[in-house]
């Protein structure tokens, strides 16, 4: 008989056995009646005696066909289900606690797994690297924290001379105007050199890659599309290959489509456009290009760095800088070296530490949830003392009882886990909504088999955790039946209460850690909010980006006049107070421009001055943005159209160069020895360009149109600008519509992009802190709530167990307030111990949070003092409610019961 038959034929097998045993006894009875002349009753008794206990025989016979362990497990499971049905309140509380705990952990795990743990979706991802350079000698470099990017001449040198890379390339992301398909549209464009797609090694979904031949200047121009743009604009039409589109007024042939989900180093794009670097016109500088490489198999990051160091000498020997007036070796002062980073590290960025903090936090909540469930189970175990004592007395083994309790715990955890999956899926949506705006690999986050395995593992682990505590308690029942029967009214002994007290202390300690972490993040956010960002009334400043390609309007002056007209049109919209334009608004995350400047009267050797951020502004920009001019004046349009040699600098630059903002007015600077001196006419307050948690960079605000000293003083204007306008209607759909109309009244071919308020940018710059805060606050609130439930439960139970004692005390004259205080005091004592332990643990955790804090010490005295008070007050309240129940105890009834 196969095992399957044994399962399905079980019932008939047992029936046959029963019948067989019955027949055996019957046959024996009849034989005894016949041979020994006994009555039927006597004969039957004798037959049964000879046979033995028929039930036992049947049981032992059945066992042959059974899987005893499995069947006993199923029986335990049935028992557990029955018990759950009998106490729905307990069941719902436990399941809800577990579902929330497991669900939250699964959601965060899924995010951590997708972002941090899974390999990148490229072939041999370990060979992929981001090519950065380290330049400790280039003081003031605005993107110094990340490192120095590559210049086109570096890329050309590295591509030709490297020994360690299979392919190497550079890329930048930006936008481009696509016209001629529907209405003009600004799309996300990623400009790539040969070698970038080869490094990723991801074949196109249609057509072909961009190749070396496509980046020869002044030849047939091409473009590739992203899968999303192909679907959105061309409906996934395969015949799009070979068709042409207008990108920034250039006709480009579509040669291929990249597959769904493909990104260039976590940068989403619509079109891929090849660079067309002409080696004859390249100089050393222009360090604005992101490098990417695929190392040859077996090559280490160290070896690739050494290769870069070797090639940097070739680079300095091969190219020059027209503006520095010398050879490349002045870059020796920058002490450039290779700083290659594995691609995964580059893609993940600094979100890793945040996610681990969140994972740890949610893990602690799970621990608190488990201790709470353990506490609830202990209460129930107390209630089952009598039953367990009877069972033990009847011979039930300790392991049998423990197994029964553990089975129930596993069942609870598994049901909680299933419910947790639903919560996790909802949680993932919430995380996506409140997560940092640029969460890396966000499209790779998916609830998959690994998430389910995690849920299962966590469910079983938690079952083991709280189940072990409950099982140990159940294994030591009071075997004295007399004691057990008296259990309901007897005063609870200290020993029986100790286990539950320890759990409450643990909960309070863990809640302390989470609450202190949450308060530290609240104080961090408050400190960030206190920083003057260098602009005001951000929610009423509307920003929008417009790019005017050279092909559309080649002349610089005409371009500026067009931009000026747009600014005028925008300022004329009803409700708009003022308008201006700028290259980069604060916190827009656009790659900055920078260079060094020379101060009149100071050493002006190339490379001797630190780097300064360059921004380009129009008259009225500072006023619109709410950036104060601390000395001097703003630009006038006459300054700009007249190409006057005047400049505005930031306050920190003025102070560093001339001592004070006032002293800077009338002083002069320049960027090249051959350039005319620029006179400082204004000093603007410091602006936190990269976010309030980073220092304000020393900045030179150039007029939006300038003479270019290294190109025979040709005139250059900013073609990629952000307009800002101040209005109470900022951020409204109606204003956005009117802005669109105003721009198209000036030129119908100009797409308007990135319409957002300065307030949006400001909030986004704090997204990481806000996200951490929200997660810690949720975790802290859950921890607090669970701890208070724990305290409530312990005191409530203690009150119910000490009814007799309360009755005696009241009979002897104790006042109700004294008795109430007795219970509140015991809760406060537990909280106190938990607080002391929690303070120590919180100090350790806060040090780990250090990287996320701003303007707050990890051992911030306010946080470390406020939270214990909060917890003490909350626990006093949580214990006061059940303690007040002593008022309802009638001493006569309490003693009469006894």
């Amino acid at each position, binding site marked *: 008989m196969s095992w399957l038959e044994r399962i399905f034929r079980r019932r008939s097998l047992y029936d046959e056995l029963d019948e067989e045993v019955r027949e055996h006894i019957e046959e024996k009875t009849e034989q005894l009646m016949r041979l020994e002349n006994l009555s039927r009753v006597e004969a039957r008794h004798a037959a049964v005696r000879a046979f033995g206990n028929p039930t036992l025989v049947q049981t*032992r016979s059945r066992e042959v066909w059974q899987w005893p362990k499995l069947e006993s497990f199923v029986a335990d499971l049935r028992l557990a289900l029955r018990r759950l049905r009998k106490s729905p309140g307990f069941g719902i509380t436990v399941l809800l606690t577990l579902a929330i705990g497991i669900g939250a952990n699964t959601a965060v795990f899924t995010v951590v797994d997708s972002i941090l743990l899974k390999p990148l979706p490229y072939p041999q991802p370990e060979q992929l690297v981001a090519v950065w350079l380290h330049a400790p000698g280039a003081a003031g470099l605005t993107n110094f924290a990340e490192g120095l990017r590559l210049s086109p001449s570096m890329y050309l040198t590295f591509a030709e001379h490297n020994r360690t890379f299979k392919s190497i390339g550079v890329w930048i992301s930006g936008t481009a105007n696509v016209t001629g398909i529907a209405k003009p549209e600004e799309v996300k464009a990623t400009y790539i050199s040969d070698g970038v797609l080869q490094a990723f090694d991801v074949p196109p979904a249609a057509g072909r890659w961009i190749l070396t031949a496509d980046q020869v200047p002044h030849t047939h121009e091409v473009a590739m599309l992203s899968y999303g743009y192909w679907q959105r604009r061309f409906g996934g039409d395969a015949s799009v290959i070979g068709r042409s589109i207008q990108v920034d007024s250039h006709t480009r042939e579509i040669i291929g489509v990249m597959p769904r989900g493909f990104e260039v180093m976590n940068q989403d794009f619509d079109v891929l456009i090849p660079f067309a670097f002409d080696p004859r016109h390249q100089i050393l500088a222009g360090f604005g290009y992101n490098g990417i490489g695929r190392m040859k198999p077996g090559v280490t990051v160290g070896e690739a760095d050494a290769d870069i160091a070797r090639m940097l000498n070739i680079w300095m020997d091969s190219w020059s800088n027209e503006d520095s007036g010398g050879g490349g070796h002045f870059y020796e002062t920058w002490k450039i070296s290779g700083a290659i980073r594995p691609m995964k590290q580059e893609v993940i960025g600094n979100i890793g530490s945040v996610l681990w903090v969140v994972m740890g936090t949610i893990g602690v909540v799970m621990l608190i949830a488990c201790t709470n469930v353990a506490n609830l189970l202990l209460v129930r175990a107390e209630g089952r003392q009598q039953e367990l004592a009877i069972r033990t007395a009847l011979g039930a083994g300790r392991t049998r009882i423990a197994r029964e309790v553990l089975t129930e715990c596993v069942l609870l955890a598994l049901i909680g886990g299933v419910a947790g999956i639903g919560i996790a899926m909802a949680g993932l949506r919430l995380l996506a909504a409140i997560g940092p705006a640029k969460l890396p690999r966000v499209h790779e986050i998916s609830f998959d088999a690994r998430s389910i395995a995690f849920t299962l593992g966590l469910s079983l682990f938690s079952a083991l955790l709280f189940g072990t505590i409950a099982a140990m308690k159940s294994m030591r029942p009071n075997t004295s039946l007399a004691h057990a029967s008296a259990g309901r009214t007897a005063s609870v002994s200290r020993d029986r209460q100790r286990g539950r007290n320890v759990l409450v202390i643990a909960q309070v300690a863990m809640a302390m850690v989470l609450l202190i972490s949450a308060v530290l993040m609240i104080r961090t956010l408050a400190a960030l909010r206190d920083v003057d960002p260098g602009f005001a009334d951000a929610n009423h400043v509307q920003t929008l980006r417009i790019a005017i390609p050279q092909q559309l309007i080649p002349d610089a002056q005409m371009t500026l006049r067009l931009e000026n007209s747009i600014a005028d049109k925008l300022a004329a919209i009803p409700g708009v107070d003022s308008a201006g334009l700028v290259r980069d608004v604060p916190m827009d995350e656009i790659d900055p421009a920078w260079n060094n400047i020379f101060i009149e009267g100071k050493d002006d050797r190339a490379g001797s001055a630190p780097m300064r951020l360059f921004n380009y502004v129009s008259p009225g920009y500072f006023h619109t943005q709410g950036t104060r001019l601390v000395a001097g004046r703003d630009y006038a349009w006459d300054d700009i159209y007249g190409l006057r040699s005047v400049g505005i600098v930031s306050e920190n630059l003025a102070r560093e160069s001339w001592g004070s903002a006032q002293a800077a007015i009338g002083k002069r600077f320049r960027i090249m020895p051959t350039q005319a001196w620029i006179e400082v006419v204004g000093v603007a307050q410091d602006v936190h360009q990269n976010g309030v948690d980073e220092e304000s960079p020393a900045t030179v605000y150039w007029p939006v149109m300038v003479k270019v000293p290294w190109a025979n003083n040709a005139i250059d204007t900013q073609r990629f600008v952000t307009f800002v306008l101040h209005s109470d209607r900022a951020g409204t759909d109606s204003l956005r519509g009117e802005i669109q109309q105003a721009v198209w009244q000036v030129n119908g071919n100009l797409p308007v992009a990135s319409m957002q308020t300065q307030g949006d940018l400001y909030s986004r710059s704090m997204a990481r802190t806000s996200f951490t805060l929200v997660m810690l606050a949720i975790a802290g609130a859950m921890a607090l709530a669970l701890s208070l439930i724990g305290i409530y439960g312990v005191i409530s139970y203690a009150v119910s167990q000490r009814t007799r004692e309360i009755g005696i005390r009241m009979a002897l004259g104790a006042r109700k307030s004294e008795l109430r205080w007795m219970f509140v005091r015991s809760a406060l004592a537990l909280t106190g111990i938990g607080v002391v332990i929690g303070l120590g643990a919180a100090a350790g955790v806060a040090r780990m949070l250090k990287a996320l804090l701003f303007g707050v010490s990890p051992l911030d005295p306010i946080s470390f003092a406020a939270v214990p008070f909060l917890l003490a007050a909350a626990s006093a309240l949580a214990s006061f409610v059940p303690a007040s129940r002593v008022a309802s105890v009638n001493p006569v009834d309490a003693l009469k019961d006894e």
Partner: protein
Amino acid sequence: MGKSTETPRDLFPGALEMMILESLRRQPAHGYALVQHIQQRSKNLLQVEEGSLYPALQRLLKSKLVKAEWAVSPSTNRRVRTYEITKAGLHHLEREISSFDRMLEGIQMVLGPARRTANS
């Protein structure tokens, strides 16, 4: 728990199964008849507790050493489950008897000289 019900019956583990198989080799029988047969053949030297027969029969059934079917007993006219030894049961029985013979021979060889010395 009470004392094991198997101890007085079995001389060694598997003896009851061997006797059941040997009885069935002679002719198919139902449970009660098997008990009767074993006791008669052993001249009541072996007291087989009737109840312990059924777990042993279930073990043999599960191992496919015997097969069973319901029939009406011609002697008592009762519906009984009759057991019959299978081919696998026969092979198993041969192996068990041979193993038992070797064991008995070994025991006799060990006990033989001692008994001779004690008798002389």
